[in-house]
């Protein structure tokens, strides 16, 4: 009898241990996913912040550029750099056949002409002299240099020819290949060529969308929250508004994209693919988030504040606007920032309103076509070229960086400025 009891007790304790173990492993698994995830993004992405350059001696021959003696600034601007640039590449291997010459040309980006031109414009006295110039390597060689591209594949399966590899290895041996910080990733707009693609255009698109979103969503949401929390009579209609807000907060984002497409683009004829439309769509999406946050922080202001103001003879409106609302601002602001962070990561609605168009200029206003950072991630992730994989990860790192900063900011506002009532 006693033995049985002990057995039962032991098995119950074991069950207890097992249950705790399940709980621990669930948390462990969730954190493991997070770690793998972040590790994977960082390990594939960090190389994108380096860019491979070929250092090539360029002889600025006036004749090849069809320049007279003592050319003016305009002459230098208009001169023909293409032949010079081609000649520079061909000079890497004087015995190259025509096909090999083509390979040589494709070892650098198609910006090579511009890079050589910039060098000469900076220092016009270079004419007739030879100087080492940094040229952007093609994305395939860039990947080879970073070790992301398997060299042992058969030649017909890779995009780099054996000949290009041979010349490239020679250059590496001569110390003529260099890896430097990839500034162009932040300053160039999108491009079809991985080595020249940057996030400047999509970054500006994101900034404009978020600004439009903020300008529309913040005032409307705060005013709505003030009404619902402070002034609204308790009746069917305000209940209905409340149900609406709660439901809107859980409507899938793609439905807001359909709203943008069906109403903003089709009915109001706003310009397609622009941050303006994207921002309005996102603002409708963030509206419920901000309203809920603002109401919560209005609710947290103790009634004694309101009563004190009313007792001093303030009207209801004065009480609210002079006392309750300012006291609730920290909570509202941090809720707004979190809502904006959500909007910043949103992709699907922006795709539907056409912000996936290929944009190779940096937008200057919310009315110019643009992409946004998450859409840029989508566009690059769908490209087949190997060079884009690291770009996607790098773009994700930039986006995550922004989200972290925004969330930290929200935390700081909340902890620093929010009054604790108790």
């Amino acid at each position, binding site marked *: 009898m006693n033995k049985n009891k002990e057995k039962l007790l032991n098995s119950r304790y074991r069950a207890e241990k097992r249950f705790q173990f399940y709980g621990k492993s669930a948390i462990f698994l969730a954190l493991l996913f997070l770690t793998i995830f972040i590790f994977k993004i960082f390990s594939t992405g960090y190389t994108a912040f380096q860019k491979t350059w070929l250092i090539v001696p360029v002889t600025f021959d006036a004749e090849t550029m069809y320049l007279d003696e003592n050319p003016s600034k305009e002459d230098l601007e208009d001169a023909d750099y293409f032949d010079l640039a081609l000649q520079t590449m061909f000079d890497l291997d004087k015995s190259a056949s025509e096909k090999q010459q083509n390979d040589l040309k494709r070892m650098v980006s198609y910006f090579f002409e511009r890079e050589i031109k910039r060098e000469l414009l900076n220092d016009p006295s270079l004419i007739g002299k030879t100087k080492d110039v940094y040229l952007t390597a093609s994305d395939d060689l860039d990947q080879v240099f970073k070790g992301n591209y398997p060299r042992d594949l058969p030649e017909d399966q890779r995009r780099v020819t054996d000949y290009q590899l041979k010349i490239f290895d020679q250059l590496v041996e001569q110390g003529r290949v260099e890896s430097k910080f990839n500034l162009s990733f932040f300053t160039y707009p999108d491009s079809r060529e991985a080595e020249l693609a940057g996030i400047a255009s999509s970054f500006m698109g994101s900034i404009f969308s978020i600004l439009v979103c903020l300008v529309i969503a913040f005032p409307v*949401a705060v005013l*709505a929250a*003030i009404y619902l929390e402070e002034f609204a009579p308790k009746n069917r209609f305000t209940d209905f508004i409340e149900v609406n807000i709660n439901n809107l907060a859980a409507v*899938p984002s793609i439905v807001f994209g359909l709203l943008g497409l*069906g109403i903003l683009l089709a009915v109001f004829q706003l310009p397609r693919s622009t941050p303006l439309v994207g921002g309005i769509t996102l603002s409708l999406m963030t509206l419920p988030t901000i309203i809920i946050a603002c109401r919560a922080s209005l609710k947290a202001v103790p009634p004694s504040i309101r009563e004190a103001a009313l007792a001093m003879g303030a009207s209801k409106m004065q009480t609210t606007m002079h006392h309750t609302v300012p006291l609730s601002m920290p909570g509202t602001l941090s809720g707004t920032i979190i809502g904006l962070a959500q909007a910043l990561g949103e992709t699907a609605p922006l795709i539907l309103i056409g912000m996936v168009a290929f944009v190779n200029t940096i937008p200057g206003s919310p009315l110019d076509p643009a992409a946004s950072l998450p859409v840029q991630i989508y566009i690059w992730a769908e490209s087949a070229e190997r060079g884009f994989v690291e770009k996607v990860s790098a773009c994700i790192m930039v986006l995550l960086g922004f989200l972290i900063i925004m969330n930290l900011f929200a935390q700081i506002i909340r902890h620093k400025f929010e009054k604790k009532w108790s």
Partner: protein
Amino acid sequence: MNLVIFIFIVLLGFTSYYFGRKKAYSIQATNTRLTALPQFYGYYLAIWCAIPAFIIYSLWAIFEPSIVKLIILSDYSNQGYLDDELNLIYEKTKSLSRGQFSGEITTYLETSAEKYLNLRSIAQNSKVVLILAIIIASIVYGYKRISSNNRTREPVEKFLNAVLFTASLAAILTTIGIVFSLIFQTIDFFKVIPLFDFIFGTHWYPAKAFVRDASEPLDPSMYSDTFGAVPIFAGTFFIALIAMCVAIPIGLMSGIYLAEYASTKVRQYAKPLIEILAGIPTVVYGFFAALTVGPFLKDIGTAMGLEVSAESALAAGGVMGIMIIPFISSLSDDVITSVPQSLRDGSYAMGATKSETIKKVIFPAALPGIVGSILLGVSRAVGETMIVVMASGLAANLTFNPLESTSTITAQIVVILIGDQAFGDPKTQAAFALGMTLFLVTLSLNIFALRVVKKYREKYE
């Protein structure tokens, strides 16, 4: 020009605020008792100055283009043009008047363009005159009211109250906007495709419905067997199911652990860390699923001799499950913590272990809330777009093999609407019909879940 008018009105509004306040001080100086604080006089005058002007301004902006269009096209009204042709003529007129027209210029067009420019300048001038007149009239009226020391606080507060109320309508307007944007296209769609075919058809090939010639009449038989949504509904359900298979055990167990076992220190760190998973943009998950999880599963599958598609439902659903973990864990954590302590104490007093208490007492007590949180998770899974678009296939296969690719409602909407859309085309309308389905499904899930959670809360309050 419009911007100038706008700034002018705003500036005038500010100036009249100061005028109103000054007037209040001057009334005060005559030892008369003011009916409100001086700034209310300012607000009062500013509102009178700016608001009527703004109303006229925006009404004008809305109606001017269509009225001008009506007048221009009235010249062509008796010549038997179709609506589309009339629109084209109007567009041509506009671009000619801007000097950007590059087609053949007829005398008709030239006269219209001249008339257009003429009308626009008349409209512009009369707008300025009208707005000025309105401003002057309303300022004079407002100033008179102030001078006779009328009440100013009440009207100003009434106005503010109206503004607040209008803002709170934004949520309703958004919902109405969603319904309107979906419903017309959906109705048009079901005029061509019978509802029955849509709900019970088993073939979904929207690519077959190429853009047709607009002048030809619509032939519904062309679209038979094109828009049968069963494979998509099944795919949506299936991927959501896989996601919940990942999310429910992990989310629920971590919620229970955090609520019942974890020390404050573990809770303090683990909870926000898990919630990071909810803050990561879905496109990032999509990339992760497509780049890492998909190929990884494929390698494992090939090693085991299974045929695994690189874009499998398992990869998309699994990653989606990871995304949903924090929703379930933090909601069920909240629900479990709000179970009254007396229930636990009673159970411990009877000699139950902690896990027995959780399983037999707390879990049943918290069940409605947990069901609510799971339903909210399901609604997330059904509405999730980017993970499916990037990691699962875009072709709608009717399959329940997790290793093959399937497609979902959201993915199909994106596939159809990416790039240029032609409104009035059944293919585009199909996307809106799918959107309507999605909206209705998630809406009913949300309403149900929120109601369950609310009821549960009331029970213990």
